[in-house]
């Protein structure tokens, strides 16, 4: 006879008053309340990440104090000042894209123009819950599990607001849409959830900017992105993170692409004090494909960590990942990639590459590519490079009359060109180019 010994619950480093939070979401459907409750239990039984966890080994969050951020009480509605502050960010997007949605700290301040959406839904989470409850219920937390770690569980328990893009079967939206998730000087916490669903044969493009206006103050994004791409559906999703340098950015993101479907997924990592992002693509049906692009530029003491996965679960699937990062100051980037090919995923063609350009002696880039291959008829290649601006290149520019500073700028811009060349949403290339140029000017000192 043995005595059952209860596993002691780990001590919760950052207690959260979930009861208080629940009072603010009483109007939500029962299934969602239950899901949040389960996720909160998960949070309470999951240890806070430490440097002993593989994904946190190089990413130290000991100076992150969860208690510094209001998570349980809903934030006040954005003020006129907030609205004015996000105006320029919105206008920059509105100039290029058909219509879009603007949110401050997860609350919608400007809905999308439905006359331009046709049968497509681009709205906030609460509205989608009311109009497309069944679809939300079917997909929420199915792609990104709340069980990932304590932060993933906490997000699932207490997330507030977010953006939903739903494209019904066979609907092809030619014009690109935008979404803006903003933090302002008074609204510093965003726990929103992004859900993108393309049914079979659907097509859409969404450009999603995450940005801060106003003075830099401690901020938090604890978010998640779930993407479902149906059979023969095609999605282009661009997500540019450009928070200020005091904002903590935690995001778990995963796309599942069904047979014959494709995703072109572009990530920009420009802002934040510290980012920890999991970006995963699952190719779940035959002939599904993914192109993943990453553009990072870090300055000062920024720390950006990306964990990518390319999960090949079906035969004849292709994935192609290219992450490029420029680093200056004392900043640091971490990229850890994994191509995982399941037994049945024969004829997989997978590629992953991470190139870093290190512009200062105090900056550091870690690149860790990985392969796990169970099928025997596959083509998987990976690579990583890290280097500094080649002095021979600078001399060549100088020999043609171009000063060294301009030469370095052109070399850095050129470094990113082959990833820009892949991005087929034209204005995104330009806005990334401009964003990198701005960061380059900051990072020069």
């Amino acid at each position, binding site marked *: 006879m043995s005595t059952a010994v209860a596993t002691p619950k780990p001590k919760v480093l950052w207690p959260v008053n979930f009861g208080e939070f629940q009072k603010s979401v009483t109007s939500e459907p029962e299934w969602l309340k239950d899901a949040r409750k389960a996720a909160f239990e998960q949070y309470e039984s999951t240890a806070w990440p430490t440097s002993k966890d593989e994904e946190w080994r190089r990413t130290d969050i000991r100076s992150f104090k969860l208690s510094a951020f209001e998570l349980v009480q809903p934030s006040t509605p954005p003020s006129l000042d907030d609205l004015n502050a996000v105006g320029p960010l919105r206008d920059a997007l509105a100039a290029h894209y058909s219509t879009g949605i603007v949110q401050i700290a997860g609350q919608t301040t400007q809905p999308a123009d439905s006359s331009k959406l046709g049968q497509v839904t681009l709205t906030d989470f609460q509205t989608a819950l009311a109009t497309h409850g069944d679809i939300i219920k079917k997909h929420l937390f199915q792609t990104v599990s709340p069980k990932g770690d304590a932060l993933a569980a906490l997000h699932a328990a207490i997330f507030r607001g977010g953006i939903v893009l739903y494209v019904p079967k066979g609907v092809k939206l030619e014009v690109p849409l935008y979404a803006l998730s903003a933090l302002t000087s008074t609204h510093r916490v965003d726990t929103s959830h992004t859900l993108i669903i393309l049914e079979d044969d659907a097509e859409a493009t969404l450009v999603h900017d995450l940005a801060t206006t106003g003075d830099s103050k401690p901020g938090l994004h604890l978010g998640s992105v779930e993407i479902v791409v149906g059979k023969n559906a095609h999605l282009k999703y661009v997500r540019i993170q450009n928070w200020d340098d005091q904002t903590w950015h935690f995001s778990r993101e995963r796309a599942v692409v069904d047979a014959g479907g494709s995703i072109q997924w572009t990530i920009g990592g420009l802002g934040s004090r510290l980012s920890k992002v999991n970006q995963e693509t699952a190719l779940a049906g035959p002939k599904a494909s993914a192109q993943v692009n990453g553009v990072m530029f870090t300055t000062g003491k920024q720390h950006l960590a990306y964990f990518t996965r390319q999960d090949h679960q079906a035969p004849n699937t292709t994935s192609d990942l290219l992450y490029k990062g420029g680093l200056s100051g004392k900043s640091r980037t971490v990229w850890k990639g994994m191509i995982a090919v399941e037994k049945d995923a024969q004829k997989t063609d997978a590629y992953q590459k991470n190139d870093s350009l290190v512009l200062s002696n105090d900056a550091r880039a870690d690149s860790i590519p990985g392969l796990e291959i169970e099928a025997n008829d596959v083509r998987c290649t990976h690579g990583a490079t890290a280097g500094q601006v*080649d*002095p*021979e*290149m600078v*001399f*060549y*520019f*100088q*020999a*043609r*009359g*171009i*000063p*060294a*500073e*301009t030469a370095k700028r*052109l*070399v850095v*811009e*050129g*470094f*990113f*060109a*082959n990833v820009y060349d892949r991005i087929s949403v034209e204005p995104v290339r330009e806005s990334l180019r401009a964003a990198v140029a701005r960061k380059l000017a900051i990072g020069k000192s």
Partner: protein
Amino acid sequence: MSRKSLRIENLHVSVEGKSILRGVNLTINQGETHALMGPNGSGKSTLSYALMGHPNYEITDGTAFLGDINLLEIEPDERAKAGLFLAFQYPTSIPGVTMANFLRHAVTNVRMPDRKEGEDLISMRDFRKELKQKMDELGMDSEFARRYLNEGFSGGEKKRAEVLQLAMLQPAFAILDETDSGLDIDAVRVVSEGVNRVAKAQGTGVLVITHYQRILNYIQPQFVHILYGGKIVENGGPELVTTLEREGYDWIRAKYPNEAQVEDELESTVLTS
């Protein structure tokens, strides 16, 4: 316009602490064409890199003036603005920077030396027109303008691109460092015609660095110099080329035993590096 000269006096250059040039004297006037010949490792490329200001080449003694500008005191980009051009033997590839973009920056800087960083580049329209014309003259497909500079270019394409840059920048002095190597005879002719066109129009002083007589049939020098053991040991006219072609360097070796010893040391360095 008064003719300038490029005056090199007693130039001593070291690379990684090793003395390569040991007192080079050479004066080139605008409108003249000179050839600099010499065996491998004699320091021909060192002279061109040192004049252009490559950071690895340390000037230990001597002077180099372009007109009244002391080249050795200014940055490479300022040397280019002063009118010095070097066609590289092995031009570097610049990923992600198109040839057109590179050249537009170069032309802007060289033609408007007082322009401040951040001010407008030369007009895109005029630039494109001029670039297309110069590319046509060199038999280059205009598609090259959109390609990343030297990336995936063949040896011949790189040399042509160097001469295109020469044609666009219209310098007072041009050094061609083994521009003929790796080119077939037709390409040597096209590239040489390009150089001659610029030289004639601009009165460019040209220094052709080469191993072979071939390119000198097309770019005909009035003055020929032999660099040996880090010094210019012979100065003459075109007849020197013929002599070298016929007899090689043995007679030089016999005539200049001290330099021959230096040459042997330098050559062994080249072989082991």
